[in-house]
């Protein structure tokens, strides 16, 4: 496995930063899990820890997407990147911006008054979930993304070799960039605030990100199995088409109870119920391609790709549909059921996606023919089994909460501190299991291709 163009190596910069942020995300996740049991266990309060947990997630996935895209665009366009120095500059600018934002959160955590508005703008934390980054950081992020997109488009224009995969990938990225904009203005109404906020959050994770996932799935299947481009691209168009046909109006499932008109109950209920269909199609696509594969060159890469497709469907699809109908959501909205869905969906749809892409591309970036896959599989099972149990414990907590708080009318705090205590304890324990998996993955990332192959190659795992 070798790369075609030298500038594809830039992907590794992004991977390294992404992997380190992943580790940070899981470490603070464990602190947050312990805070559910004992709230004042750490110098930073839960709100700061949680901001770090979800922001690290979003950023490492986005940084991962960027690295992956530089690799794919160069590969698909059959040319070096338009400007490697620009890509490097854009990388370091992103690292600096993210570091400043994190330092700001920590400062605010130690001294809450530091976030007092300056000219009506909170300087350290916008106080809006997932898009907490302050306005100045928003602008820097927009500049970074524009430089990134410019570099990609100029690369494509060098050879004008438009392939379906890179067309859909870039289309998804442009859609992603555009959907950051509805989060950039202040509204006096909390209803309108949440309305536009969902444009960002929903149209990212159930819109543009799934488009990117569809394009990368086709790319990874093509690279690992040698399957035909025409077939993969046709199914890719059908999958990402269905993602948007259901997902755009599926946004309505966030507009049931925030002060929006009642017709969203119909629109959101119907369209979001259809959202799992394209995800199921992706699973079928992955299995069909794998079954027909004659020449698998990168087994761990293919293994993670198929796992991503499966857990995308289970986490984003199944764990979403169980509470998406308004009749059900009326009772489960705002409970731990949503948290459970969030964890499995992000893990299956995007964490496994970026890790798959790393395993598909890293061996060629490092120029290794063959590498020992045992740590790749070991970390997969540690992470996946732990995550499944984390999600089951939170789902259990959500069911208890829905029944006791929403149906019986017990107090929120009573349910959380007493009746769900054991769920929190188990969740923290499985969180440590997940950390072990991430640790193995991080070690593997840094060592892959840098140590000699064992004399006896390990038994092949099923892929």
């Amino acid at each position, binding site marked *: 496995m070798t790369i075609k163009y030298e500038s594809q190596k830039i992907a590794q910069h992004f991977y390294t930063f992404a992997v380190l942020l992943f580790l940070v995300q899981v470490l603070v996740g464990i602190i947050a899990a312990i805070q559910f049991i004992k709230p004042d266990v750490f110098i930073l309060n839960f709100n700061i820890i*949680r901001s770090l947990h979800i922001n690290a997630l979003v950023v490492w996935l986005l940084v991962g997407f960027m690295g992956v895209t530089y690799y794919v665009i160069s590969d698909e366009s059959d040319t070096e990147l338009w400007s490697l120095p620009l890509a490097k500059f854009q990388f370091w600018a992103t690292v600096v911006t993210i570091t400043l934002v994190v330092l700001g959160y920590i400062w605010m955590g130690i001294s809450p008054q530091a976030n007092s508005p300056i000219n009506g703008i909170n300087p350290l934390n916008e106080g809006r979930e997932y898009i907490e980054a302050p306005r100045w950081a928003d602008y820097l992020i927009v500049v970074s993304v524009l430089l990134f997109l410019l570099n990609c488009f100029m690369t494509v224009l060098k050879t004008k070799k438009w392939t379906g995969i890179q067309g859909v990938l870039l289309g998804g990225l442009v859609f992603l960039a555009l959907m950051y904009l509805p989060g950039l203005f202040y509204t006096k109404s*909390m*209803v309108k605030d949440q309305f536009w906020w969902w444009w960002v959050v929903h149209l990212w994770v159930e819109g543009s990100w799934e488009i990117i996932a569809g394009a990368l799935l086709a790319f990874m299947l093509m690279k690992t199995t040698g399957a035909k481009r025409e077939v993969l691209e046709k199914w890719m168009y059908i999958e990402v088409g269905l993602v948007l*046909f259901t997902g755009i109006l599926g946004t*309505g499932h966030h507009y049931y109870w925030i002060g929006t008109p009642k017709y969203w109950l119909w629109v959101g209920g119907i369209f979001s119920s259809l959202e799992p269909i394209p995800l199921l199609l992706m699973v079928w696509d992955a299995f069909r391609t794998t079954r027909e594969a004659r020449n698998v060159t990168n087994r761990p890469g293919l293994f993670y790709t198929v796992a991503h497709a499966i857990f995308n469907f289970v986490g984003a699809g199944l764990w979403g549909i169980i509470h998406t109908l308004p009749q059900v959501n009326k009772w489960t909205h*705002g409970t731990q059921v949503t*948290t459970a869905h969030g964890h499995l969906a992000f893990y299956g749809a995007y964490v496994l996606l970026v890790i798959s892409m790393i395993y598909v591309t890293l061996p060629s970036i490092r120029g290794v023919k063959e590498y020992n896959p045992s740590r790749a599989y070991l970390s997969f099972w540690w992470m996946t089994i732990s995550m499944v149990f984390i999600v089951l414990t939170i789902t259990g907590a959500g069911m208890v909460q829905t029944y006791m708080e929403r149906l019986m009318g017990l107090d929120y705090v009573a349910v959380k501190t007493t009746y769900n205590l054991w769920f929190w304890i188990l969740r923290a324990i499985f969180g440590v299991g997940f950390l072990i998996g991430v640790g193995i993955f991080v070690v593997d990332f840094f060592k892959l291709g840098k140590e000699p192959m064992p004399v006896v190659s390990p038994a092949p795992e099923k892929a």
Partner: protein
Amino acid sequence: MSNKAARNLFIIGSLFFFVIFLVLTFDTMGKLDKRAPVITEEVNAGKMTWHKYDCIGCHTIFGNGSYFAPDLTKTAENKPKGYLKQFLMDPKAVNAKAAMPKFGISAQEADHLIAFLEWTSKVDTNGWPPKPILAAAAGVGGKELSAGQRVYQAQGCTNCHMINGIGGTTGPDLTKVGSRRDRKWLHEHFEEPQKVVPNSAMPGYKHLGDQALNDLTEYMLTLK
């Protein structure tokens, strides 16, 4: 289906659904202000304060947020303002078991936050959060309520206090209050809580009149 046809279907179909989404968004924007009270300067200042302290990092509002602390959509409807103000400024001084830390919220900021929460409590949320089915049923089914129990329900005491596991955790648990306090103490406390408990954040209920407070006291005395 050819690849080109699949691609065109993807592009045209997506644009079609996005246009429908834009039309619905436009229609919704025209209707939102009618479904909520007017936003005063105070309400907006409260929203700014909400963002400043990253309240959503623990709480939820309209059910969206962090699921670590109670949803605040209807809080202003359920808890007395005086209590809320004292709590926001120093949570653990009001309720030693509270998980919320002291952020340094000023008296003015607390007023603004309460104005903001009063606004959210009056937004038409299509009936969310729903009234708990079983608690509602327990109040009307079975035996007749005593006069004191009716006062207890009508005043919403259960929003803050708990009896036999049902009710809030922000005020003291009343399950065995009858064995802790006597008639005189209870009555005085209802009239003016601060007279017997100096730091109490509970509002006084003198305005209900002697009869109602006697009934309530009788009810409390049965809780042993």
